[in-house]
């Protein structure tokens, strides 16, 4: 019997991470776009995990949240251990998918005619209402594209996860790490099953998303 845990954990991790990434990504895109100074540096820092090999990202996460770090020490006060836990897998997935969400969203924000925002301001509309009722609805396509990319990225995430969250069946073992473990165990049949599973899942996911996005696009404003 096939153990369904890796699929469930992959989905739980991907959904949680993508959701958090979604909010943080939009927030950062909006924040960085409105920054007057240090925009380039902030942009580079957020984009960095996209360029670094995932294992290096995982290593940085270990250093950042490990028990020797300031954050790790603070967490230990609350008896929170992150390394080798499910939240660590979520954090790893967030960090690697955030650049995609952030970049795509920022691109979408910048595509919007700035005069539309300016017009709203001169007409007395508050920044909050501008964000929710003008910026977001008019950049929906880009934001959704970012969401799709982020989700896809978390599904395939391997390097940072295995480094930071480990490869613990039933806890942190995702489909990707399950394939790795199966190959290491010389259980090619199992590896092939999971590989087929991840391909099938990704295909279904992308197809249904495209379908949904097409419908969204066709929906007139």
């Amino acid at each position, binding site marked *: 019997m096939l153990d369904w845990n890796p699929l469930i954990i992959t989905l*739980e991790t991907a*959904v*949680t991470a993508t*959701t*958090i990434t*979604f*909010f943080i990504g939009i927030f950062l895109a909006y924040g960085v776009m409105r920054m007057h100074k240090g925009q380039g540096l902030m942009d580079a820092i957020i984009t960095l995990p996209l360029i670094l090999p995932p*294992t290096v990202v*995982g*290593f940085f996460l*270990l*250093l950042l*949240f*490990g*028990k*020797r*770090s300031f954050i*790790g020490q603070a967490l*230990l006060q609350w008896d929170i*251990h*992150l*390394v*080798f*836990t*499910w*939240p660590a897998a*979520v954090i790893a997935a967030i960090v690697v998918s955030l650049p995609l969400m952030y970049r795509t969203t920022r691109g979408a924000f910048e595509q919007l005619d700035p005069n539309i925002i300016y017009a709203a301001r001169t007409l007395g509309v508050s920044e909050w209402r501008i964000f*929710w009722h003008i910026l*977001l*609805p008019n950049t*929906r396509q880009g934001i959704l594209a970012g969401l799709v990319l982020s989700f896809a990225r978390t599904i395939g995430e391997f390097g940072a996860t*295995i*480094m*930071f969250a*480990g*490869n*613990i*069946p*039933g*806890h*942190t073992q995702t489909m990707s790490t399950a394939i*790795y*473990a199966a*190959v*290491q*165990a*010389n*259980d090619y049949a199992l590896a092939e099953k999971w590989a087929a599973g991840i391909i099938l899942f990704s295909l279904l996911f992308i197809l249904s998303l495209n379908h949904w996005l097409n419908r969204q696009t066709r929906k007139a404003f």
Partner: protein
Amino acid sequence: MKKFFVLLLTILILTASVGCQQQLATTTTPEKQSPIELHIAAAASLTDVMQELAAVYAQEHPEVTITFNFGSSGALQQAIENGGQTDLFFSAAAKQMNALEKSGNLLAGTRKDLLENSLVLIVPQDSRLELNAFADLSRPELKHIAIGDPSSVPVGQYTEEVLTNLGISDDLTAKAVYGYDVRQVLAWVATDEADCGIVYATDAASTPQVKVVAAAPAGTHQPIIYPAAVLRDTKHPEEATAFLAFAASEKARAIFTKYGFICK
């Protein structure tokens, strides 16, 4: 759009709470009478043998559940040093264990040099090259020789040591194909992409698609030792020590030997 946001937030809260419950469930189990969960971090090259070992152990000790965490020894060492909670560590090389010992992460007196591996020359099952020794590697008809990357992969470092000691290292540089882990080297030979390759004896034993034609001559490389130890932060020192003792027992030796290891 607003509905969409609300939907996402709901999903977030739901999955996060499920995830946390999962975490809580595992951390609170010791309070109850439920089985003890031993977390074992082990080198990826030990995956199959450790799983068999655990299955045997579970029959004798139903009160203990074993959860594995397989990865590269280096990554596991880094994670443990940075607070990754685990009870036992089985490393594929002494280097990582030494580092953990130095940083005070091992439970004193539990470290054991458990296993030894050897380096072998393999060819595809149906190879007609008639290679018989490491020295044959300099033969001109060989096109691709698969070895581990000496700069990053342990098997590659041992391989280079052997080739240097045999004085044929320079002859091979043009033909060498470097793999980033030993399984890749094995796969290249198994699929007949490479004429031959150098892997651990255990890897050679894992597939019928390759055959061993020679073992590295004695003394041409440092001993390939697999140490194991209980970690200082373990919540179950007794059970962890017991499992380590089992790993050194006669019963376990039989299993290890089956997979090509030499027991110390």
